[in-house]
């Protein structure tokens, strides 16, 4: 409420002003609070933490914490297959894996960090998460076996299927 006029002016520029006024009950969040909550990684790598890892270290983590659900070397079963499928996307039963389908390597880090291992999410260190990401990318031959994954190298990884995605969303015309 207190900053209503200024807010309206800002959103007027963006063309998305909302018509109704609220009671202004949000509490300002400090940068430290935001940093503690914000776990998402953009495709440009924004938000990636310090740390690094390699496929060899990732295999150790994988064999201890991931293999029961995703199979030896990411072969799948009982849950998602993580490796292979290249060349199957035009088939009647395409195999969509990190290597054959996923457009961004940053998504692997983001998803592992927020949701895996299934029974103990948020338990891996950044280094373990980088290492697991490196292991899965190396299994798919997307990176070399000795490549180091960190905040600099991960966003630069070129995923094989990256150029095959189009956005169906069209933004409505601004008023």
């Amino acid at each position, binding site marked *: 409420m207190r900053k209503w006029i200024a807010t309206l002016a800002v959103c007027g520029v963006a063309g998305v002003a909302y018509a*109704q006024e609220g009671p202004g009950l949000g509490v300002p969040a400090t940068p430290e609070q935001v940093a503690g909550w914000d776990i998402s990684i953009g495709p440009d790598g924004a938000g990636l933490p310090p740390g690094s890892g390699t496929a060899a270290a990732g295999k150790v983590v994988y064999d201890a914490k991931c293999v029961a659900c995703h199979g030896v070397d990411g072969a799948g079963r009982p849950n998602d297959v993580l490796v292979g499928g290249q060349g199957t996307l035009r088939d009647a039963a395409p195999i969509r894996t990190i290597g054959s389908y996923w457009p961004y390597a940053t998504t692997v880090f983001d998803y592992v960090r927020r949701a895996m291992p299934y029974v103990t999410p948020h338990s891996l260190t950044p280094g373990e998460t980088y290492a697991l990401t490196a292991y899965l990318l190396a299994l798919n031959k997307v990176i070399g076996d000795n490549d180091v994954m960190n905040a600099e190298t991960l966003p630069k990884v070129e995923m094989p299927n990256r150029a095959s995605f189009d*956005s169906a969303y069209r933004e409505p015309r601004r008023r």
Partner: protein
Amino acid sequence: MTKPKGLDSLEPVAGNGLLHRRLFLTGSAAVLGATIMTAKAAPPEVPAWMKTPGMPMRAYGERSPHEAGVQRLVNAQPSTTGSGGSRTPIEALEGIITPSSLHFERHHSGVPDIDPAQHQVLIHGLVERPLIFSMEALARYPLVSRIQFLECSGNSGGNNNAEAPQQTAGGIHGLVSCSDWTGVPLGILLEEAGVKPEGRWLLAEGADSAAMSRSVPMAKAMDDAILAIHQNGERLRPEQGYPVRLFLPGYEGNMNVKWLRRIKVTAEPTMTKDETSKYSDLQTNGRSLLFTFPMEVKSVITSPSGTQKMRGPGLYQISGLAWSGFGRIRRVDVSADGGKTWAQAALEGPALPKALTRFRMPWRWDGSPSVLQSRAIDETGAVQPTRAALMAARGAQFRYHYNAVQSWSVAAAGDVSNVYA
């Protein structure tokens, strides 16, 4: 045909016994029904429940134990108990509101047990003022209520299999439900945070142990998105995101992030796992479409429907559901001869935008093998496609957004089954 087909006419309005949609609103149906009803008249009696006082009041109601068989169809992913989905038994329900206990579920790591006193929603990113909202604060905001459907984009996907799945209507199409959702318009909260001009998207994230996250266009957030806190009058069920979920009318279910904890305003989509590797649409040419958000126009006959059995020839009411993520349902046509001829069904009104809409159609079944179909048209003029047309357009490998006409075969013995026709 010598006299016009009208309300007083028991003449079919389309092939294989479809009667005028307003027949049941007139006295004409009673004439037809009389022969059936007389056989059922029983001598006067005083049943047991009239001879003793009934049960006491109770603080929270339960359905009749005789209805306990109406259940969601639960399907958990291997080696988990909380991941997977459950489907609404739409063939057992009437009207347009799905009871909260039967609303479909789709979870990625179970249903979290959230203390509303500790739960907060953070809005940050490309905003002037990052803000934290407690549940107590959110409940003090202006609320809006809307009856709207929610549908998983994987709903009805079994019908793109080569063999028609022999399941109930809910087993095939039960990843859709409809509730009276009440919540805070998201635009009000974003205004208070002050969205910067370059903030064209936002990331919505849940507080489940998968921290499920999706990117949402700012234009949708400012249009009709709400942070829902009530469902059918009471606070959200845990399975539906208690204490607060994002609700995006007409958009695919996965985007309606439950247990909402964080909204980050961004310039571009975050490209989360669910919007890239899962809910994207692979096409026959090997290319994939991201961000196919609205659920297209669709309908399904729920009675009679798959695995049900019709009890002999006579007058029946065909009943079904239609919906569109683009707005209101304008019309539903029904065929009893596999799509050769069609007649307009009655819509229960008012037909609300982005809500389930109930349609009805009288049918005098002569006992011969028949194929029932329904075809919905929404207010944008979009027509629900035939299965053949949809499969030809999208190929066999597509997974989401199946919205083709459903065909139910009625055998001479009365058994109803799923067929591709």
